[in-house]
C-alpha cells in the first residue's frame, strides 16, 4: 500500500509542476543567472586554478599548493602586504580629508559656484588616474620634476626639495583621485537625510555643536563608514599609481606585484605566483564587499524620505565664504587644473623644462602632429570600438537583470542581484589576469586572447555591477502598475517590456551607458594586462609612451584625452548631473 501512496504523491507533484510549470520568465531568469554566473565566476575560477598550478597556462599538470607555500614563506610578501595596507589606509585618509568637508560645503552651505564645482568634480572622475599621476611626476619627480628643477635653480639645492616616489606620495595622488567618486556617494546619502532630524534637536534646546556631534555624525556614520570600506576595497586593488610611482621606486603592493608576475620585464611569467597573491586580494575584496553591503543597508534604515520635506536652510558662510572657496579651489587644482596645465605646458615643448623666455620661444604643436606617426590609426579605432561595445553589452545585461530583480516574481531574483553585484568585489587587475589565463589555457573554447573582444568582455564584467545598480534604481521608479496595465490590455510580456518599460527607463539607461563608455575610455589596468599588438587602445599607448620616456608625446596625447572628456561632460552636463551619484567605479 505504502509505495502506491508515495507514487500517488509524486504523480501529484509532477502533475502540478506540469500544469503550473516554470513559466517563461522563470526560464528566462534562470538562463540569465547561469550566463551571469559563468562570466562573473570564470575569471575568479581561473585565478583560483592558476594559483594551484605551476608552469604555463594550458600545460595542465597536477594541482599543487607549492605556489602558496613559496609565496607565504617568503618574508618579502609580508612587506608587500604591509605596503598595500599602508597605501590603502593613507589613500582613504587623504580622500576623506577632502571629501567630508566638500560634501558639507556643497550640500549645506551657501557656497558660490556650486554647479561649476559639480561639473569639475564629474570631470575629475573622467581624467584617467595615470595621466594625473604622470602630471604630478612631471611636477614633483626628484630628478626631472619642475618644482625640484626650480628649487635647485633658485636656492641652488643639490638634493630634491620634494619627492613623490614614496608611500605618502602614492597615497596622496590616489586619495585625491578618489575624492569625486566618494563625494557623489556621500552626497547621495546626505541628500536622503531628513533635515527635520536636525531641527528637532534645535527645538529640543540642543545647541548646534552638540547637535552636530550627537545627531549629524551618528546618523551619517554608516554612510561615511560605507564609503570608507568601499574606498579601502578599491585602494587595495588599484594599479595605476602603484605601477607608475611605485614600480620605479621599488615600492611594491599587491596589484603591482601581480602585474609584474604575469608581465615580467625579464624572464618568464609566473601565473601561479600571481594566483597566490590574487587569492588574498580576492578574499579581502569579498570580505570588504560584504561589510560594504551591510553598512549600506544599515545606512538606509537611517534615511527617511519625507513627503514634503523642507529644504534645509543653507548655512550662511559669511566671512568664511572665501576661505571655504580657497579650500575647494585647492582641491580642484590638485585634481584638475594643475595636472592639466602641466600636461599642456609639456606637450608644447621639445622636452620638459621650466617656463622661461627660451622655453616660450620653442613652443610648437609639433608633438601633436607627430602622434599619428607613432600610433597609427589602430588605437583610436580600438578605443572607439570599446566605447560603443562595452556600454551596449553592459547596459543590455543590466536592464535584463534589473527587470528580473525588480519586476519579476522569480524566487531566485535575490541571487541574481548578488551575482550582478559581485564584480564590485573583484579587483579589475585580477579580472583581467583571470580572463587572460582563460584565453591562454583554453584557447579552443575561448579564442579571444590578444583581441579587442577580450577587453570588451573584461570591461563589461567589471561595470555590470555599476550598470545594474543604476538600472535597479531607474526601474524602481517605474511603477509596477504601468506594466500591469499593459498586461491587462492583453499585451504579451516581452512586448510590454519593449514598448512600456524600455521607453520609460531609456533616459536613465542612456545616461549610465554614456558614463560606462567614458569609464571604458579612460580605463588602463585591464587593457594593459590583456595587451597585445592587435588590441592596443589609446590608454595603453600613453602608458607605453611613458614607459619609453617620450614625455612630450605622452603629454600631447594626455591633453587630447582630457579635452575629449571635457567635450563629452560639457555636452551632457545636464544628463550627467545625476549619473555619478549612484557611485561607482572610481
Amino acid at each position: 500500500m505504502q509505495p502506491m501512496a508515495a507514487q500517488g504523491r509524486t504523480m501529484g507533484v509532477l502533475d502540478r509542476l506540469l500544469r503550473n510549470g516554470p513559466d517563461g520568465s522563470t526560464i528566462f531568469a534562470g538562463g540569465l543567472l547561469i550566463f551571469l554566473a559563468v562570466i562573473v565566476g570564470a575569471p575568479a575560477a581561473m585565478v583560483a586554478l592558476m594559483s594551484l598550478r605551476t608552469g604555463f597556462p594550458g600545460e595542465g599538470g597536477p594541482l599543487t599548493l607549492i605556489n602558496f607555500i613559496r609565496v607565504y614563506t617568503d618574508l618579502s610578501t609580508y612587506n608587500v602586504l604591509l605596503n598595500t595596507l599602508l597605501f590603502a589606509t593613507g589613500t582613504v585618509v587623504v580622500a576623506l580629508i577632502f571629501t567630508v568637508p566638500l560634501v558639507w560645503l556643497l550640500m549645506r552651505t551657501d557656497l558660490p559656484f556650486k554647479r561649476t564645482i559639480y561639473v569639475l568634480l564629474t570631470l575629475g572622475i573622467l581624467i584617467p588616474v595615470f595621466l594625473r599621476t604622470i602630471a604630478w611626476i612631471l611636477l614633483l619627480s626628484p630628478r626631472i620634476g619642475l618644482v625640484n628643477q626650480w628649487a635647485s635653480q633658485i636656492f641652488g639645492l643639490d638634493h630634491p626639495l620634494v619627492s613623490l616616489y614614496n608611500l605618502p606620495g602614492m597615497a596622496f595622488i590616489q586619495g585625491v583621485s578618489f575624492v569625486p567618486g566618494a563625494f557623489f556617494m556621500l552626497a547621495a546619502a546626505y541628500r536622503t537625510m531628513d533635515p527635520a532630524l536636525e531641527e528637532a534637536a534645535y527645538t529640543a534646546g540642543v545647541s548646534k555643536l552638540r547637535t552636530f556631534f550627537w545627531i549629524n555624525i551618528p546618523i551619517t556614520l554608516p554612510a561615511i563608514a560605507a564609503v570608507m570600506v568601499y574606498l579601502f576595497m578599491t585602494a587595495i586593488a588599484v594599479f595605476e599609481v602603484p605601477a607608475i610611482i611605485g614600480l620605479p621606486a621599488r615600492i611594491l603592493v599587491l596589484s603591482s606585484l601581480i602585474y609584474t608576475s604575469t608581465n615580467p620585464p625579464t624572464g618568464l611569467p609566473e601565473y601561479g605566483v600571481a594566483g597566490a597573491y590574487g587569492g588574498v586580494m580576492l578574499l579581502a575584496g569579498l570580505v570588504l564587499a560584504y561589510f560594504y553591503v551591510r553598512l549600506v543597508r544599515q545606512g538606509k534604515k537611517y534615511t527617511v524620505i519625507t513627503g514634503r520635506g523642507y529644504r534645509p536652510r543653507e548655512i550662511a558662510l559669511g566671512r568664511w565664504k572665501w576661505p571655504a572657496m580657497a579650500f575647494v579651489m585647492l582641491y580642484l587644482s590638485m585634481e584638475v587644473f594643475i595636472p592639466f596645465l602641466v600636461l599642456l605646458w609639456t606637450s608644447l615643448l621639445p622636452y620638459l623644462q621650466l617656463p622661461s623666455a627660451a622655453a616660450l620661444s620653442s613652443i610648437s604643436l609639433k608633438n601633436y602632429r607627430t602622434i599619428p606617426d607613432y600610433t597609427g590609426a589602430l588605437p583610436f579605432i580600438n578605443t572607439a570600438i570599446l566605447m560603443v561595445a562595452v556600454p551596449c553589452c553592459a547596459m543590455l545585461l543590466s536592464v535584463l537583470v534589473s527587470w528580473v530583480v525588480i519586476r519579476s516574481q522569480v524566487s531566485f531574483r535575490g541571487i541574481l542581484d548578488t551575482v550582478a553585484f559581485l564584480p564590485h568585489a573583484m579587483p579589475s587587475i585580477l579580472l583581467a589576469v583571470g580572463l587572460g589565463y582563460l584565453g591562454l589555457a583554453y584557447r579552443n573554447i575561448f579564442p579571444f586572447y590578444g583581441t579587442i573582444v577580450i577587453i570588451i568582455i573584461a570591461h563589461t564584467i567589471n561595470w555590470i555591477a555599476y550598470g545594474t545598480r543604476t538600472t535597479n534604481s531607474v526601474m524602481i521608479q517605474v511603477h509596477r502598475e504601468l506594466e500591469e496595465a499593459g498586461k491587462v490590455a492583453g499585451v504579451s510580456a516581452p512586448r510590454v517590456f519593449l514598448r512600456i518599460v524600455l521607453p520609460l527607463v531609456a533616459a536613465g539607461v542612456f545616461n549610465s551607458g554614456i558614463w560606462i563608455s567614458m569609464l571604458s575610455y579612460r580605463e588602463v589596468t585591464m587593457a594593459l594586462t590583456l595587451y597585445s599588438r592587435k588590441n592596443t587602445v589609446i590608454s595603453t599607448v600613453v602608458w607605453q609612451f611613458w614607459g619609453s620616456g617620450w614625455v612630450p608625446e605622452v603629454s600631447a596625447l594626455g591633453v587630447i584625452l582630457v579635452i575629449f572628456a571635457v567635450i563629452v561632460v560639457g555636452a551632457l552636463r545636464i544628463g550627467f548631473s545625476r549619473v555619478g551619484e549612484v557611485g561607482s567605479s572610481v
Partner: protein
Amino acid sequence: MIRIKGLHKFYRTRHGLVEALRGIDLEVEEREFFVLLGASGCGKTTTLRCVAGLEKPDAGEIEISGKVVSSPGKGLNIPTEKRDIGMVFQSYAIWPHMSVFQNVAFPLIKGRKQVPKHLVSEKVSRALSLVKLDGLEERPATDLSGGQQQRVAMARAVVTEPKILLMDEPLSNLDARLREEMRLELKKITRSVGVTTLYVTHDQAEALSLGDRVCVMHEGEIVQIGTPQDVYARPANLFAAQFVGEMNFIRGKVTGPGQVDSPLGRLRCPVPPACQTGSEVTLAIRPEHLILLHHPSQGSEALEGKIASKNYLGDTSLFEVEVNGTALSVKLPGDSDFAVGQQIVVVVAPDRWRVYL
C-alpha cells in the same frame, strides 16, 4: 503666550522674490490651542517655523511668553535652541540611531533644560505614559509604527515642559482612522499638560475639532481669526467660505435692503451695509441649511425644483437639486426618501444666507 506683529518673509526662488508672509498679526493666549489653517503655500508653516526660529523673518516681531525672540528691525534673532518651545514635525523626525527612551531623554540630557540624572528616567516615563507608550522604552526607534513614532515625537516635545508647543501637520502621515483617534488624544494631552499650542494643518475638520481658535490663512495673509463655530458659521469672506466646509454659491444683484435678485429668484437675505443697491454679490449657503419638502407650505420662502441626483453616504444623503436651471447641493439625513426626478420644494431660512461682495 505668543504674539506676532507685522511678520514679513521673502523667499528667493527661480522666479524672483516671493513674499511668503505679507504682514501677519496674531496673538495666542496662555494655554490656548491655536490652529493655523490654509492650503499648501499659504504661509502657515512658514509662520510656525519663524516662531520656532527655524526661519528668519525679514520684518516684524515675535514674542514668546512676553520675551521678544525675533525682531529683524532690531537685529534680534534668538536661535531655536534657546527658545522655550517643543515641536512635533510632520515627518516626526525620530532620531533613528536612538531607542525610544533615548529619543525622549535627549532634550533632558543635552538640551537647554538639563535635569539631574536621577530625574531623567522619571520624567521620561511620565512623558511616555502620557502618550501611552509605557513599556516600549528600549525599542529602537526604527522599529516603531507610524502612530507610535507620532507618540514618541509628542512625548519628546513635551518632556521638557515647554511654554509653547508647535505642531506642523503632525497627523497628516497617519491613515484616516488613526488620525481621528490621535486627534482626540492630542487634545487631551495638550489640555492635561496645559501648554500653549500653535498647530498647523490644511485639514479643516482637524482645525475645527482641535482649535480653541482657528486662523484661516491665504497667500501669506490672515483671512479670519475666530472660534471654530465663528469661522464655520460666519466666514469672513468668499475665500474663507470656499475653504472651510461645503457651500453653494449663487451670483446675484442687490435690488433693495435685504433683497437680492438671483437665478433662483428674488431672495430675502442679510445684505451687509457695505453693499449698495445694484452691486453684484455672491450668495452662499451650506448644504445642510437647505430643507426639502414634498409640497409647498405657506409662509416660508420656497423655491420649486427637481431632484437631479442622489448620493447616499450612510449617515447622510447628498442631493443635487435643480432650481430654475441652477444646481444646489443639499445635505439631508441618510434615510431621506426623495427620489431622483421628483418635484420638490426647497425651503431656506433667510438668516442662513451669507452675502459676499
